[in-house]
């Protein structure tokens, strides 16, 4: 058994996810090199100092505007998008799933709720399009990205800012607001990386967001009986999982805590109140912590690229497997190279 599980992403969604991830990572690296310039001075220098960093931030900012508008438009004009709206609304199952997750952790439940399950295995039919975490991620990330794009454009537009705020300090306060808004996104993405990188069944990366579901064969009705379990007990754990997931989990927690503390003390606002030019409370621990957070993001970037490498390899593998199969009277491939998956028929 491979570690592929039933994907929910279409090809367009996988591509969008990768591009969005790349763009947001660049926005993180540049934006927080500005905000945490005490701790991330090396990143600032590496990306061309103040002018280089702000330039990259603006270019990727425009990229984000394009991506966000693209996605909103697509969801509105396509029937697929519109039909998905109901699936992101919170449901009772989501609360149950949260409670059951706590029970699962405490050993009072034997498995995760379908609305929480990342590894679906034999019970794939029970799993909804989005887990309760997935819904939360969609909500928080969409609101955040929209607000960040709007406030970012307002900062950028000189007249927009100057018209609203008379003093430089006031304008600055708005930049601070924009940066603080991004902290939620920053912490959320660190969690997202941990969640999709360290699941023991998928480690080192859950491929659902990278391999479109059209390329993942599904099996339905193979077994006559209802499966008892997801079948996770049949998978073997990777030898490095325990060590790596412990280290990475610790890094994720330290990273989140550090950027949170940093955002409170290191906001750079209001400088006049303290006149602490040259930095807020520079602390070695905070510096290490924020840098660990950046490492977590770096790992996320690498995993996202690795996910795409896996997709390419999977495509090639499918192509190789398809050729001999067609000779024995299998269904002819009409779309040239893109293997038709079972789900074209079985998913109604």
């Amino acid at each position, binding site marked *: 058994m491979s570690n592929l599980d039933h994907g929910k992403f279409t090809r367009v969604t996988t591509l969008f996810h990768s591009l969005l991830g790349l763009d947001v990572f660049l926005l993180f690296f540049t934006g927080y090199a500005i905000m945490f310039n005490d701790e991330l001075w090396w990143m600032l220098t590496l990306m061309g100092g103040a002018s280089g960093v702000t330039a990259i931030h603006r270019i990727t900012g425009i990229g984000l505007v394009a991506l966000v508008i693209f996605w909103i438009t697509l969801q509105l004009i396509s029937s697929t998008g519109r039909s998905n709206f109901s699936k992101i609304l919170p449901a009772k199952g989501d609360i149950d799933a949260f409670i059951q997750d*706590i029970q699962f952790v405490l050993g009072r439940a034997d498995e995760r709720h379908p609305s929480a399950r990342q590894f679906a295995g034999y019970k794939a039919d029970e799993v909804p399009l989005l887990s309760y975490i997935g819904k939360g991620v969609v909500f928080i990330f969409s609101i955040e990205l929209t607000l960040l794009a709007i406030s970012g454009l307002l900062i950028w537009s000189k007249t927009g800012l100057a018209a609203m705020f008379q003093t430089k*300090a006031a304008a600055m306060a708005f930049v601070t607001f924009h940066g603080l808004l991004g902290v939620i996104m920053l912490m959320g993405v660190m969690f997202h990386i941990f969640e999709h990188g360290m699941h023991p069944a998928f480690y080192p990366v859950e491929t659902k967001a990278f391999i479109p579901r059209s390329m993942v064969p599904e099996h339905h009705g193979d077994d006559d009986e209802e499966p008892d379990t997801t079948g996770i007990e049949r998978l073997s754990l990777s030898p490095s999982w325990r060590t790596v997931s412990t280290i990475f989990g610790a890094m994720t927690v330290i990273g989140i805590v550090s950027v949170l503390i940093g955002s409170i003390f290191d906001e750079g606002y209001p400088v006049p109140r303290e006149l602490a030019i040259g930095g807020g409370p520079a602390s070695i621990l905070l510096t290490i912590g924020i840098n660990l957070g950046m490492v977590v993001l770096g790992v996320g970037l690498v995993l996202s690229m690795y996910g795409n490498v896996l997709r390419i390899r999977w495509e090639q593998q499918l192509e190789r497997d398809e050729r001999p199969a067609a000779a024995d009277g299998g269904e002819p491939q009409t779309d040239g190279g893109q293997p038709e998956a079972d789900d074209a028929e079985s998913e109604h």
Partner: protein
Amino acid sequence: MTNTEDLPEVNGYSRVSVLVSAVVGLAVAALALFWAQGFRLGYESLYRVNPSVEGGGIGSDWVFGNTIPALDFLIALIHAADVILGAFILVMVFIHWAAFQRLADQMREPGESASEAVAADGGSPTHSDGQGGDST
């Protein structure tokens, strides 16, 4: 319905909608760029990055404090949101961390061979997850 011949997934997006969305996205981004860059004012002189950093940045040359109470409030609010959501996200990290540990315990250890873990008849695995609970 979408064009299922080009896009095998039944619920995929049609080419037309993807194309239209891409055009709209790029057009809006271009407009935004034009709007943001279009009108100049001496805003670049707002330095932000500490003056100690070469070149400085927006805000580092400010003299007066922020005098707009609404902004002060907004910043206090967002600080609060950061802390509350941060705490929540941390809880989520811990729940998943612990859940992953349990899931890992249910899986086969790296060296373990197939025959040990799966019932000989190949039926539903009787392998205990070490939690003592039976899976029904």
